[in-house]
């Protein structure tokens, strides 16, 4: 296979070999279900491995071991957070939720599903960089409000919310707060001893860990109901087969992230932005220049369409993504770019490049050089931008 320049690490990442190595025994040696301490030996070993992984992940948040449950990924975690709280508190307290307009689909569509069940949802506006406004949030909170969900870092434009202030505001109003930290976990600090978040969604797939494993931090005593019926796994909050290799891999993946690596990702991110603006005219950065996740660069190039750009780049082995409607499965332009005040045109020409552990500075330079050529070539015969 030809060399691949993979800059779509927000979507999925290449597994780290050390993660696979940590997982392997749980496929071939300790492959049983996790049993109670009264079970058979390999079941107890499996249980120990799972709990050790849980402990490591919980510790990463500054949380207690029993405050972290494993799920199949971010989508399930956010579904459980929103629907579980709605089920637990809908009748007792109220039927009102608040989510930001630029949430990723799991939160957005869980909210819409709840609307169909009779809940009222307010969708919080964001400014041109993607930040929510605290006063606007305060104004929306009522006695009926049971949950606020605002993501930590945005999936497309990388904007990092002031999660501490948001969580504190919710806490002061006696409202539960959920944050989707899929794109910030281990990259941007989130300690629940300092940030009064009640529920935090995380996943291994963005961290060079395995796909199909994620988790939800649930602060002790948070009212939440089970939505996946089955056995009594995960403190009876999520029925289903324990994903022991996944849990072990997730913990290993988290262990492997270092502050030095995050610094390196930030440098590559900034290099992409710097070079793109140097080489390509009519460019606009999507999201904030510094308050963004270390891995995310997202730039709109006027007069060209994103799918055309990505297809050309693919011919050079370069993988990036775009918010263009033509690229999406619903044929709709990125809701994030539209909500930060962008128009169809800005979404149309937006290119998201997200870096990971296995990228190098040389790759970044090659990618941006190629991108500049592709954009110039497409602009030559674009129906826009000539006057």
């Amino acid at each position, binding site marked *: 296979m030809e060399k691949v320049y993979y800059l779509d690490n927000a979507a999925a990442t290449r597994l780290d070999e050390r993660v696979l190595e940590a997982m392997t025994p749980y496929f071939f040696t300790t492959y049983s279900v996790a049993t109670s301490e009264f079970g058979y030996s390999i079941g107890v070993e499996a249980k120990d491995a799972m709990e050790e992984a849980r402990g490591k992940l919980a510790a990463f948040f500054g949380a207690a071991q029993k405050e972290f449950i494993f799920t199949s990924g971010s989508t399930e975690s956010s579904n459980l957070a929103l629907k579980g709280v709605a089920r637990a508190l809908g009748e007792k307290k109220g039927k009102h939720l608040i989510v930001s307009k630029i949430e990723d689909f799991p939160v957005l569509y869980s909210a819409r599903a709840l609307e169909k069940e009779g809940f009222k949802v307010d969708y919080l506006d964001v400014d041109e960089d993607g930040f929510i406004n605290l006063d606007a949030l305060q104004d929306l909170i009522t006695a009926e409000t049971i949950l606020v969900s605002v993501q930590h870092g945005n999936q497309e434009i990388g904007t990092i919310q002031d999660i501490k202030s948001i969580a504190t505001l919710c806490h002061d109003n006696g409202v539960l707060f959920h944050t989707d930290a899929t794109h910030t976990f281990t990259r941007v600090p989130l300690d629940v001893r300092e940030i009064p978040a009640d529920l935090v969604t995380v996943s291994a797939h963005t961290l060079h860990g395995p796909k199909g494993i994620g988790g939800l931090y649930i602060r002790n005593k948070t009212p939440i109901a089970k939505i996946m019926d089955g056995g009594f796994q995960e403190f009876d909050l999520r029925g289903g087969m324990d994903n022991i290799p996944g849990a072990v891999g997730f913990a290993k993946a988290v262990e492997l992230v270092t502050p030095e690596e995050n610094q390196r990702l930030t440098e590559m991110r900034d290099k992409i932005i710097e070079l793109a603006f140097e080489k390509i005219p009519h460019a606009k950065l999507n999201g904030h220049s510094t308050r963004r996740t270390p891995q995310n660069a997202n730039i709109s190039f006027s007069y060209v369409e994103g*799918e055309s750009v990505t297809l050309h780049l693919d011919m050079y082995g370069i993988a990036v993504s775009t918010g263009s409607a033509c690229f999406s499965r619903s044929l709709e332009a990125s809701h994030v770019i539209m909500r930060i005040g962008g128009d169809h*045109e800005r979404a149309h020409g937006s290119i998201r490049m997200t870096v990971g552990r296995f990228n190098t500075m040389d790759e970044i330079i090659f990618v941006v050089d190629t991108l500049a050529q592709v954009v110039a070539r497409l602009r030559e*015969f674009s129906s826009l931008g000539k006057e």
Partner: protein
Amino acid sequence: MPSPYNDIVLEHFKNPRNTGRIENPDGKATEGSPACGDMVSLYLKVDPETKIITDIKFESYGCASNIATGSIITELAKGKTIDAAKKITWQEASDALGGLPKIKAHCSVLAVEVLRSAILNYEEKHGLITSKEPTTEEIVRKRLKKVMNPIKGLDMVATHLVKEIEIKGGVVRILIDLPADHQFANSIKEDAIEKIESLWDIDKAIVEFTD
């Protein structure tokens, strides 16, 4: 490399034919859809005696299938009379490209429409067109045939998405047989509104869904 596009489409996408502009064209048009975001412009030189298209160029602000269809349509139209070129269908363009992914049909349909619009523009400029007629259900239906149903890759009329059409005092109401939260509901709605609101005697198009 695995791709949803075949080699002919990719070849036209990589090396599109007849790109650019014609200075002082005899006919020109731009078609665009804010729903998909694609835009395509087309320029014609027509021989005043034979009505043969002697030169044709296009510009695209669009995705791969838009660019590839623009390219093939210029090849198909060049050397034909305007009457023959007008009859080129999306299906012929798609066949010439060896087929396009269904979901991409609506991006490529623009490239076919723009050829017809540019010919119309030529005819209007050269006094070959009769007066405007008021919008009827039949005209609305004809316009909606240009809106693609991405589920099937065929237009929304042929795929029975149009349940009701009502025209009242410059307002057209269209009922679409899809749930409002369907994956493609918004895309189809925006496309349909654009096609109908551009009719000369229509101020507003309202699109509703059955569920």
